């Protein structure tokens, strides 16, 4: 079992849990957290290189590093692992954000030990989800990722934290109820006595009538986590109240679980229904894209702005997945990577600014460029990434999505593609509005003039993220090929593409 490298994505966090449990002071906790996340980052980087090597050597299985270990034989539930390019991209993203999140929580207070314990537990869920290809195990890890969120927001949050934590948890739980139903439906209707994704996808044996019933449930179930309109309202409140690292991990990684799940479960297993019903969700996600952007234009709380911007950007992910062609889906995965990184950067910076000014209201701040130039420049870079400046990650992801979406010739798809394109203008409006009010102009509050610029751990966190954002933006073909080559032809067979 331990000869499979993937299993270490769960083992390392478990060891970290133990290490943090045994730590006696802040320094030890930090050491364990940083060392562990570095190990995870190293592991995913190694995995990336090794994976590309294997592919180059001719490995053509849909998933590599396969491993199966039964843990409940009556239902044939297994811990099945395996990765393709998409999962590797997601694992890389998660480990980067865990690392930067650890740096961002350098001074977490109170109860640092408990905070890190829950944070690592959450990351076990995330990593487990991305390596699993067994529907049941996948769902289990999904739940493991959701529960700690309640405590992390409820205890270490700010503002109306109990309300937000409860709302977030209940809405996501509501989504996972749908999800559970649809997973059980898939299990019984595929008739294979197997929870394995690949086997179910290859057999494609789910009855079409059942697909029409199960697909919407699975899509909505994951869509709630992907902040799909109208199930997105947990996102602004949840993000606004969550502590920095949790916002980062949640917007950066957890919301990606939604998009990943929609792709990996809903569309991969039920392509027929996906093709038939895509238009409904296309309308919803198309609305998400523009709606989120318009809402962000009038918010005054930095975190709300970013949360609505996430609604818009994550809407674009689901939107692109629903276009059901390779280019748009590649764009969707790239958008997940890109949004994960830049939104983590945003939340990290907002946390740092809030930690200094003790307000997140943009009307109460101004001219921070003069006071804390480093943070302000980083914020500006994040903003540019968000509004899709070439050379940063947002541009390549959005352009791949738009070009791919335009490939789909249905009138409805065309219309919504053009509507989605409009979001690039609205995004520019709200990003520049914030940049103008928050960073530029004269200093609003004289008390802010004594504030200090970033510390070394804050710089580490932001620089890492910025380098990643720029790397995707400057060398997109590497990532695009990594993702594109893993779209197995099976799903497109049904779609006739």
């Amino acid at each position: 079992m331990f000869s499979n490298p993937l299993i270490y994505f769960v083992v390392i966090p478990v060891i970290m849990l133990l290490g943090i449990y045994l730590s006696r002071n802040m320094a030890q906790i930090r050491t364990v957290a940083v060392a562990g996340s570095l190990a995870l980052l190293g592991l995913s980087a190694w995995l990336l290189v090794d994976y590309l090597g294997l592919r180059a050597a001719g490995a053509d299985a849909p998933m590599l590093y396969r491993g199966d270990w039964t843990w409940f034989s009556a239902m044939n539930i297994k811990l099945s692992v395996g990765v393709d390019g998409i999962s590797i991209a997601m694992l890389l993203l998660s480990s980067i954000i865990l690392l930067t999140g650890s740096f961002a929580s350098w001074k977490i207070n109170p109860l640092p030990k408990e905070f890190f314990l829950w944070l690592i537990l959450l990351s076990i869920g995330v990593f487990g989800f991305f390596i699993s290809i067994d529907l049941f195990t996948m769902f289990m890890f999904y739940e493991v990722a959701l529960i700690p969120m309640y405590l992390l927001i409820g205890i270490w949050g700010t503002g109306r934290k109990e309300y937000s934590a409860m709302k977030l948890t209940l809405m996501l739980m509501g989504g996972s109820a749908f999800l559970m139903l649809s997973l059980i439906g898939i299990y019984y209707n595929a008739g294979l006595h197997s929870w394995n994704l690949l086997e179910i996808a290859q057999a494609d044996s789910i009855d079409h009538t059942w697909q029409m019933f199960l697909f919407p449930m699975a899509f909505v179930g994951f869509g709630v986590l992907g902040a799909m309109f109208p199930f997105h309202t947990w996102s602004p409140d949840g993000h606004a109240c969550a502590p920095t690292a949790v916002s980062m991990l949640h917007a950066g990684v957890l919301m990606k679980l939604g998009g990943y799940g929609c792709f990996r479960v809903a569309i991969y297993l039920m392509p027929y229904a996906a093709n038939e019903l895509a238009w409904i969700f296309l309308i919803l996600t198309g609305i998400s894209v523009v709606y989120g952007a318009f809402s962000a234009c009038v918010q005054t709380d930095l975190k709300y702005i970013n949360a609505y911007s996430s609604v818009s950007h994550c809407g674009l992910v689901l939107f692109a997945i629903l276009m059901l062609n390779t280019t748009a889906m590649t764009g969707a995965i790239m958008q997940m990577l890109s949004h994960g990184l830049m939104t983590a950067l945003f939340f990290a910076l907002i946390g740092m600014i809030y930690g200094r000014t003790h307000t997140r209201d943009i009307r109460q701040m101004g001219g921070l460029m003069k006071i804390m130039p480093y943070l302000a420049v980083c914020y500006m870079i994040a903003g540019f990434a968000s509004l899709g400046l070439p050379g940063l990650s947002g541009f390549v992801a959005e352009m791949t999505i738009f070009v791919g979406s335009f490939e789909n010739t249905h009138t409805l798809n065309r219309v919504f593609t053009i509507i989605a394109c409009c979001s690039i203008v609205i995004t520019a409006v709200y990003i520049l509005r914030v940049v103008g009010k928050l960073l530029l102009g004269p200093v609003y509050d004289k008390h802010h003039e004594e504030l200090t610029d970033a510390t070394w751990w804050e710089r580490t966190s932001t620089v890492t993220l910025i380098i990643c954002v720029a790397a995707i933006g400057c060398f997109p073909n590497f990532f695009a090929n990594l993702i594109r080559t893993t779209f197995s032809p099976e799903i497109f067979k049904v779609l006739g593409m």
Partner: protein
Amino acid sequence: MEPIIPILILCLPLLGFLVLGLLGPKMSHKAAGWYGVLSIGTVMVLAYITAITYFFSGAPEFILDGTRLQYVVFNQDWLNFYKDLTIRIGFLLDPISALMLVVITTISFCVHLYSLGYMEGEKGFQRYYAFLQLFSFSMLGLVVATNIFQMYIFWELVGASSYLLIGFYYQRPSAVSASKKAFIVTRFADLGFLIGILILSYYTGTFNFTDLTGSVLANGSSVNNLITPGVVASLKFGGASFMGCSLLTWALVLIFMGGMGKSAMLPLHIWLPDAMEGPTPVSALIHAATMVVAGVYLVARLFPLYLMEEAALLFITVVGAITAFYAAVVACTQVDIKRVLAFSTISQIAFMMVSLGVARPEIHEGLGYMASMFHLFTHAMFKALLFLGAGALIHAVHSNDYTAMGGLRKYMPITHITFLIGCLAIAGIPPFSGFFSKDEILSACYENNFIWGAWMSMVAGLTAFYMFRLYYLIFWWDEPDYGHHKPHDAPWPMSLPLIFLALVSCVAGFIPFGEFVTWNGEPYHIHINWVGVAIPSIVIAVLAIALATFMYRKKNPLPDKVAKATGALWTAAHHRFYWDEIYMFITHKIIFNLICKPIAWFDRHIIDGTMDGLAWCAQRLSITIRPLQSGNVQSYVYVYLFGALLLGGVTAAVVLL
């Protein structure tokens, strides 16, 4: 041609940006400034070498039987979408890109040098140079683009560097809002550009200019002609149409919309006058000479495609003609000298647009195209000269308004002479460069349709009038009280570029431009139609200058009287015909108040309210049924007893009956 020089042309400014951006704060002002100047100077030399090689080497990849070819120096895959649809980063060498390389690097070098003096001692000096380098990189990348998506990428980058430079004085709220406005307006235009690219690339299956606009020859070079575009248009688009226009027309008009944004055509012009909030050298570089002509360049780049669609060309002509007139009228009434120049820029770019719009292969072998590029070149030189001159004036009197100036010819002789040369050039007086290029444009207009020609001649007259109005108000008129610090000419780093550009403006008109730049690469021999076009336009210009001299040479009440007499028209022109107010109304009152706010309200109260409402219902329900579970055993027993008796009764009834 070896790709090393082109690579250096692109990489040096980028490197400059990174070095100055990252290490700038640790460098002294002097080191940063000179590093920037040297970097762009090297690039300029390399660009000249490239252009000279292209035009004069006679190598078979550049010229074939007298026809200049398009040559792709290198083309690197950057992002692959599907099949052959790939964004590449490359370097396309053809007449217009070689021309633009020369224009951009020359002006950029002048501005770098000039800024050493102009920006001396400013806070953020290194940052300024970093942004200038970023801009130069983006603009060079734009003009050498081998495919339309590369152009779009750098198009966005120049937009961003323009944003950064307009907002250079970031603590000044007006600069912040001007930069924001510039970015958002051009972003809106880019939306059209993007959709146009999507349509075009979907139906043709390629982004490459060489595939879109020309045919590729055996040696890898390609030539612009009407074969491929015709094939593209007929085969790929088929009969597809949308709302009565063919899809190709839609694509081209939408792409032109991008150009309208960058080149400040009506109604997307509103950002350019505000962009004057940036440092003056920046206005000279970005908002007069290079970035704002990107729209013209874009149309020129896709010209063979535009030739396929008469409607798109007509659209360009109409937009250009209206803009030219509008901007010229507004320029007559502005107080801020930089705004006068800004409106003049808008008007002159509109000239180039009209020229492209009226160009047809059958009219003097596409004279309009050549004239447009010629004017682009001469305009870049004399407008940069005028802006840099204005910078010297502002530097001397610390105000942008002509009301603070007057009689400066005595104090600033170099600035005076060079500014006068610029004014003569833009007014179209021979032998200055503007005369020759404007004459070609007017010829092209008259050849196409007399109405366009007459209209543009009128605008040319207005141009001469407002430029000399400005000139007299600055250098003659009445001398205000300058106090102890009499204005004086600027230091040499500032004067040198002025003198150089003035010299160029004097001689540039004699360049046989048609030999170098035509739409299909075949040489065209310029001949000036003295009787039909040149003499009348000189007469118009001289009359306009005479009128300006009469009105503004000495302080007199005549201008005020004219202003009063024209009343509402004057006020409207002074307020730029209320475009800003209209936009304010649309963006703030309609989009912000009627779309954004209701959506935000809807989200908080309806969507979120529904979710909260569900939670509230669940809570109410549990409160309602909670008394049943009172914890009081006796009440349970009552219920139990009742249930047991009921069940017993039912059983008994069933058994008995």
